[in-house]
């Protein structure tokens, strides 16, 4: 599904990703963990095509295609989804309008007709119930006045409606209380399938109690310093990041 090879990325002239290599096969859930500032969000943003990052070396292949050659909107239509660490508020752009425009953009890309308005709303309502979101949130501006937790739930709602092939969730767990965390995890789990891959970017292992990953990677100073199975997350929790940073140094 996704193959990242020796990726080097600079931000403002400073090298943040320093030769990152990672492969995520179809149907797997990978957790990317790491201390603050290690480059997790940089990785997520580069995969989604955010401007402002200078890719100095390496490659990213998504379903056999050069992902880095695609514009952000093309990546989205091809099935790449980024759940933002800090979802932006867009007052005046209606939530449900954005959802519909996003779904239709992907459908058009695949040569499909626009979604039927009634079926679409039915689907959205069903997913909202799953995410325990108030229906009134649909008619509000995108993330406008949402609490931190509501914003994260809204990200997952969008993911559930868009059904991406590759979802990268950047600290979707941060700022959530335990109930909200369970709701989010439950939402994410409904999307697990052999045809889909997930990258969970997280600082804490807590999320991984609810979304059990196939692999765990630790990002330190812009490289994967260690990889393992879910027990690696538990060990990190116990011993702290110093354990890996020390080793990596």
């Amino acid at each position, binding site marked *: 599904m996704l193959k990242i090879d020796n990726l080097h990325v600079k931000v403002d002239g400073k090298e943040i990703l320093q030769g990152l290599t990672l492969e995520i096969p179809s149907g797997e859930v990978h957790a990317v963990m790491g201390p603050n500032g290690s480059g997790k969000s940089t990785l997520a943003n580069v995969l989604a095509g955010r401007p402002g990052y200078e890719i100095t070396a390496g490659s990213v292949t998504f379903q056999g295609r050069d992902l880095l050659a695609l514009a*952000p909107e093309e990546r989205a239509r091809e099935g790449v989804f980024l759940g933002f660490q800090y979802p*932006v508020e867009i007052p005046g752009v209606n939530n449900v309008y954005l959802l519909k425009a996003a779904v239709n953009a992907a459908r058009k890309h695949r040569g499909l007709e626009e979604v039927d308005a009634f079926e679409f709303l039915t689907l959205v309502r069903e997913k909202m119930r799953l995410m325990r979101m108030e229906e009134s949130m649909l008619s509000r501006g995108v993330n406008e006045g949402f609490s931190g937790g509501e914003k994260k739930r809204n990200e997952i709602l969008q993911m559930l409606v868009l059904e991406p092939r590759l979802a990268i969730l950047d600290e979707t767990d941060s700022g959530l209380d335990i109930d909200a965390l369970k709701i989010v995890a439950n939402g994410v789990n409904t999307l697990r399938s052999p045809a889909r891959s997930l990258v969970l970017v997280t600082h804490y292992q807590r999320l991984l109690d609810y979304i059990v990953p196939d692999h765990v990677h630790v990002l330190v100073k812009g490289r994967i310093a260690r990889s393992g199975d879910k027990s690696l997350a538990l060990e990190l929790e116990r011993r702290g990041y110093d354990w890996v940073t020390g080793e990596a140094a």
Partner: protein
Amino acid sequence: MTQSALSKRLLDEYAAVSDSLPTDVVSAERRQEAIQALAARGLPTTREENWRYTNLRPLERARFAPVAAAAAAAAPTVIPAGLDLPSTLTGFARFTFVDGTFAPELSSEHAQAGSTVRNLRRAPESSARRQGSTAGTRPLTAPSGCPEASLALLNEAFATDTALISVRGGTDAPQRVELVFVAVAGADVGASYPRIQVALDPDSRLILVERHVSAGSGASFVNSSVSVDIGRGAHLTHYRLQRAGARSAWLDTLTAVLAADGRYSLLTINTGGLSARSTTQVQMAGPGAELILSAAALGDRQQTQDHFALVEHIAPRARTDQTFRGIASGRARVAFNGKITVREAAAGTDSRQSLRGLLAGPAAEIDVRPQLEIYTDDVRCSHGATAGKLDDSMLFYLLSRGLSPEVAQRLLKWAFLEDVVSKIELPELRRQIEHDLAGQMADAASLKELL
């Protein structure tokens, strides 16, 4: 052309037509006074601080004499074939003026118990005469000789008709009136002088929709003047929608005075004209008065949209809430200059200003300027003014959901106007305006489905 040459031409043109100008609209003496005052002062120039951003070149080329004077004085208004007026609003009486003169064929009166609406020319004989009042000849110019209001003098000198609205108190249901001003003739034929006088008795209510449109794509010269008098405890909701033709010059002066506890909700949307300028001057004359001034302006191609708003607080405990959202695309220039003056006696004034401009074209220009002049300590004033480009992180968010850059930008521009558009309380009018705005923004197809 030099200022003095322009003043001379003004006087000459006035002298040539003054005999044909209706004295029931403005008396001959007052016209004379206005033209003299204007000639002495001179027409505004961009060297003046509060006219810096206006495109005043049309003044040099315009024929000042009104279209109506160019035609035979009592000739029926020529209604252009295929004139496409905005749809009427449910429950509103419509009065249409073509090139500044009342056109009964295009008007639809609804009897409304609590108000009188009349025009001063070609009214049914009785209504203007029966009133026998001189209300219509009250000066519309600013009381304090405000230099920014000088174009109202031009209107006063040449006006061909007045829409007079007086609202009596005692009914809870607001009166609903719509005025439509259509500019037809080109500036080479003559000018058009829309003129409105609104008076609200104490505790009365009025919803007024004022539209300015053009027929065809003629380059018209329009100079309107509006006077608003809000009595104690009266509420006026006033929508001003300007979409003059793309080659027109549209100049406008509004002065309003609010008595104690009066409330004025003024919402302006300027999208039309090649050179548009609004001067809005509001005096908070009574304690507890409230002004909600919301303005949006869209400029594209070579358009200039300039708005100067002066709010003067002279009485205690009045409130002003001012919102401006402007978008400059193409090579357009969009400016909003919001000045608030708080006099010594205006203790307890509460004023808020939120002015924002969006630069949406590499050659576009935007200028938002808050000015505060405060002569008392006991005030609460907050003001914010920003001008900038579309927010990158919002843009990226939309792209990351698969929207094309064009659609994403259009959506964000749309959203930018939301703070003003959301203040339109009449759903029917709001839908109309949303459609107009969507149509104004290039390639609106995908926006229309949003509505």
